[in-house]
């Protein structure tokens, strides 16, 4: 296995090297921004995959109450719980949002960047005076993140962005799993601290992209189906699933119309009164 992987790794490293050199020499980007640009290009290539993922995730939220019931029912048997959940997906023609391929496609980039940054000076023949800084607070992207104070800032940004991105890309309704995903970055900080700062920069960029993508797709796709089921779940949980689904469709506009209609009227009246007085 190792014999196969090592040549692939060195090839990945050369590809990454050429990409970074192209950004640096052709577009005159500093090295740190070349990493950011590479990340953005990778994420742009993955857009069709992630957009589809976000759409099915929002579709999935409509079924959240029923799925929660299933999870409660098979609380003690995880195997059975998973199987029943999969059956539920199939019956309702749901496409589960999570999938391994988009994540796996990012792995080679990550590994290549790690190896490229590890021997940065010899890879790019940069002199000791080369500008490897990023936004004035990271002096050297090839150095360990904790070797300068700006690295701690970068790590803080990483934790925040990781939490935000896992909030947006949360694909499970399972509460413990959700909490686990949110808390995880706090532990990974200790591992990541030993990585070159450029790699953390890649991570932060890709996370911020995820957050931006999540915000945009949430705005573009109609907001109505997402928040409504959460309200319904507490009220209609004892009723049968089908009744809940029918009721939900009726309850949705009822709940939203008054809210949408009241707010602007109140504001207008207040404005008119103040202007007259």
């Amino acid at each position: 296995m190792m014999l196969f992987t090592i040549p692939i790794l060195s090839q990945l490293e050369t590809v990454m090297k050429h990409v970074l050199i192209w950004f640096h020499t052709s577009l005159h980007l500093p090295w740190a921004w070349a990493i950011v640009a590479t990340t953005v290009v990778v994420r742009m290539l993955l857009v069709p995959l992630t957009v589809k993922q976000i759409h099915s995730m929002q579709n999935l939220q409509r079924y959240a109450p029923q799925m929660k019931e299933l999870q409660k029912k098979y609380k003690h048997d995880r195997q059975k719980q998973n199987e029943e959940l999969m059956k539920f997906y199939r019956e309702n023609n749901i496409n589960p949002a999570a999938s391994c391929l988009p994540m796996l496609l990012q792995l080679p980039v990550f590994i290549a960047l790690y190896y490229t940054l590890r021997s940065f000076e010899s890879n790019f023949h940069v002199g000791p005076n080369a500008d490897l800084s990023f936004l004035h607070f990271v002096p050297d992207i090839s150095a360990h993140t904790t070797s300068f104070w700006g690295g701690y800032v970068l790590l803080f940004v990483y934790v925040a962005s990781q939490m935000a991105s896992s909030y947006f890309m949360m694909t499970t309704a399972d509460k413990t799993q959700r909490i686990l995903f949110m808390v995880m970055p706090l532990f990974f900080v200790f591992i990541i601290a030993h990585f070159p700062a450029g790699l953390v920069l890649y991570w932060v960029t890709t996370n911020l992209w995820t957050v931006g993508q999540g915000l945009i797709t949430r705005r573009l796709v109609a907001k109505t189906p997402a928040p409504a089921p959460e309200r319904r779940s507490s009220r209609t949980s004892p009723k049968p699933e089908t009744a809940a689904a029918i009721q939900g469709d009726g309850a949705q506009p009822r709940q939203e119309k008054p809210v949408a209609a009241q707010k602007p009227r109140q504001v207008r009246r207040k404005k008119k009164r103040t202007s007259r007085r």
Partner: protein
Amino acid sequence: MSAVLRVPSLLGVGFVWLYRLTFGALFPTTCKYHPSCSEYAVQAVRRHGLVRGSVLAGWRLLRCNPWSRGGFDPVR
């Protein structure tokens, strides 16, 4: 003899565990299939050996994309 023959598949299983402890933990994702892709890979390698098991696991990973349906999909 059988112990020697099992070495390649054990290597494959070890490789999956290496992934689980490193990248699997760093990039948390949930799989749309049951058993999950990594569990599928372990079972496939155990049942069919390293070569055929790896091919099966690779094919499963390709199927685990946003356009597929997912669901219950055990190793055959």
